[in-house]
């Protein structure tokens, strides 16, 4: 199945893209998606476990993902 990984700010710069289409197994979790992202050039500049949101809700590494999900890697936030 395919999930869309969204990248922002410093993470988008590190990977040179604002989104990636990532193929994972049917029972994949957030951690599996992150492992896949790590294969991309520039991903060595990401922290070991970035903050993640699945479909716009914060999620932990064990959270399951489904086909078509939007998985966002959230750099340290700096609003205000």
């Amino acid at each position: 199945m395919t999930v869309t990984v969204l990248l922002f700010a410093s993470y988008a710069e590190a990977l040179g893209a604002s989104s990636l289409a990532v193929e994972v197994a049917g029972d994949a979790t957030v951690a599996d998606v992150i492992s896949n992202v790590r294969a991309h050039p520039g991903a060595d500049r990401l922290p070991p476990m970035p903050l993640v949101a699945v479909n716009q809700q914060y999620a932990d590494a064990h959270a399951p993902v489904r086909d078509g999900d939007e998985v966002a890697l959230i750099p340290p936030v700096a609003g205000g």
Partner: protein
Amino acid sequence: MTPLATLVRAPIDPIALVRAASSPGNGAVILFLGAVRQVNDGRDVTGIDYAAYEGMALRELQAIVDEGATRFGTPDVIVEHRLGELAVEDISVGIAVGHPHRDMAYAVSRWVIEELKRRVPIWKREHYTDGTREWVDPSGHVSVGSPR
């Protein structure tokens, strides 16, 4: 007024926020404005661009004002965050809170800005006088992907 969160690209109008938070029952209306500071961590800043994961940022902001309204017992919690390119002294965020009593009005205002800084997916890239730009990482780690 019901609790309201918005993301805007045009300049924030503080008076409009105050009006939105005012009501006959509110003995106190607090306005907080965040502005672009000229010096950050010892470096001279010429401007900031704000970026967001807009759908989620709006959801989180709305969740914060809704939760603040419930916790502190007032519907009059208004927050507006600006995105895009801002210059020094421009207002980046405005929070207006109306409450029957001042103690609670101050408390809601403070609570909203701290929650916003903790969980709303908004990022800022500072522009420096030497021409470089860098994403700000409030967690104190060296930011990734930024030219030094």
